């Protein structure tokens, strides 16, 4: 089918491995994303916090600089679990902003133009399609959360010594698991809303509103019923509970003890929420909707 031949010709060349095809979607998506200066600037902004924290770690171990600043940085900003928890908290905020901006059109754009049959008539399953769409966020958010987090940990370990690394290895695990719980939640929420809400602005509002509304419902249930279980409806609260347990800082927000949720309940609720999102996705991501 060469241009000059103008004849139909089958393809006889090599094919890409089946397992890697879901990565085609994020690759094409990033080309569009980084064509926008706004997104590129925002993405660059996401690295300010890791950069500042890397400088702080460096200053901690540079006695000359500490002396020149004439402040005791080790007392003001100790490098410990809280330092990394703060990092994860800050970066997940940026992750949320990126998700609100980039997530809504991921699937809705295909649904609006009936493009799903074109994906699914190829050797490309629904699961691969969803994973591919989620990967757009998974990869991007990973680049600003756990990857720089682990690099900071390695940097601190390098400067502080193997002893510190060994005794604080749990921090590396907490950064990894804490980041991934947020990444999964944001990506899953985003693609689910994108699959059900075609209008981009409404989808962004829905994603934003879900956290606010779930927060309000949680506190309302707690207030009216005088119980702590209302927190199970509060996504932010669930995530905070999980994060606190990972970073060994129970009730870091200083809530009354009767309001604190058991960590296991938070994990179970998160799993149920993700399963519900998956169910909604399977209902929606189909080549054609059958009208019964």
């Amino acid at each position, binding site marked *: 089918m060469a241009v000059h031949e*103008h004849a139909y010709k089958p393809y006889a060349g090599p094919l890409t491995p089946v397992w890697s095809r879901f990565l085609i979607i994020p690759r*094409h998506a990033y080309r569009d994303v980084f064509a926008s200066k706004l997104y590129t600037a925002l993405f660059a902004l996401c690295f300010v916090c890791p950069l500042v924290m890397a400088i702080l770690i460096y200053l901690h171990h540079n006695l000359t600089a500490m002396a020149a600043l004439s402040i005791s940085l080790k007392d003001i900003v100790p490098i410990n679990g809280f330092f990394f928890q703060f990092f994860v908290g800050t970066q997940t905020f940026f992750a949320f902003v990126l998700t609100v901006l980039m997530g809504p059109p991921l699937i809705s754009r295909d649904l609006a133009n009936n493009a799903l049959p074109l994906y699914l008539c190829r050797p490309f399953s629904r699961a691969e399609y969803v994973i591919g769409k989620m990967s757009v966020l998974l990869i991007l958010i990973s680049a600003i959360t756990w990857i720089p987090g682990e690099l900071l940990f390695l940097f601190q370990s390098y400067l502080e010594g193997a002893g510190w690394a060994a005794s604080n290895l749990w921090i590396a695990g907490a950064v990894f698991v804490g980041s991934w719980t947020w990444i999964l939640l944001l990506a899953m929420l985003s693609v689910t809303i994108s699959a059900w809400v075609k209008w981009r602005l409404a989808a962004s509002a829905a994603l934003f509103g879900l956290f606010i509304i779930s927060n309000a419902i949680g506190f309302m249930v707690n207030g009216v019923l005088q119980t702590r279980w209302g927190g199970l409806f509060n996504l932010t609260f669930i995530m905070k509970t999980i994060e606190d347990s990972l970073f060994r800082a129970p009730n870091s927000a200083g809530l009354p003890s009767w309001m604190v949720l058991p960590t296991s309940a938070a994990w179970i609720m998160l799993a149920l929420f993700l399963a519900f999102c998956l169910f909604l996705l399977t209902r929606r991501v189909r080549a054609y909707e059958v009208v019964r």
Partner: protein
Amino acid sequence: MENAINSSVEPLASVAILSEGSDEPAKLAEPVIHLDGLSVQFGGRPILKELRGELRGRAIGLLGPNGAGKTTLIHTLLGFHPPSSGTAHIFGRDIRKEAKPIRTQIGYLPERDSFIANMTCVHFVRLMAELSGLPSEAALERAHEALFYVGLGEARYRQLGTYSLGMKQLAKLAQAIVHGPRLIFLDEPTNGLDPPARQRMIELVRQIRDSGKAHILLSSHLLRDVEECCEEILIIKDGSIAVYCNLEEERRANRKFLELETRGDREAFVEAIGSLGCEYALTSERRLKLVLQNDVDIRDLYQLAGAHKVQIRRLNFKRDSLEDIFLKAMESGNGDGNRAAGMREGGK
């Protein structure tokens, strides 16, 4: 008409050896599509009812009224809808068990508008090629080639959202052929096209058919499209196969039936025709119908007419048009045509 339709119906297994235009004789033994009691239900309502048969043609037309199940059949073959019972095989692969390998060999042009807005056409076709398994560079190269092939070469860097309906159809065709499939499903490819665009689309379909590199399943409610492109037709009615017909065979068979309009004393002329072994019937004072023998040519008739000083004012090949066949199929009761049309489950 009844006889004509019945004569047009061939057992599918025997049709295989009559298919033309193939440069893959070894593959002729393998049916393109084998329907093995394929049934599909939506919400308990049967949409396709135990379809059986084999299709081997280079270009197969899928006809039927709206709601007959044409698109559902294509979607089921693509794996979009699970069969409620039975199955189908494409190039010998079971659609229930080997959906992915099957889809590697299939191109699909959907009926409805399907594209990704905010994307240039070449980017879109390249993405589709990559999803079919082509490496990035090969996908880009073939995307350019496919777009030039369908006639969108000059417009390939334009956003798909700005395309006219005809251009969108061509873009859909480009994405359907970019990975060089062995079987292409075309679902109403000429929908909404103006005459020149329709002609262009039909021409492309015929070119692909004649290349011998791909089989085509063309679903349409436009009989003319099917007649111009296809050598076999499958008419579906109420979810069942109403008629299977090999158009090439039909054309060859109908070539033998002639209708003549004459002037002059024709008595000796018709006797001479009879002496050639041709059956004839005088339908009016000036008209006669005859069945031409294999060893008799049209030229012989003119020579006879000249010898008997008879003018042949009109000579028509009497043939059943696809429209006749289609209308007859629609009139033939409940559409349970698998048996009525004499089809049998081939190959098993």
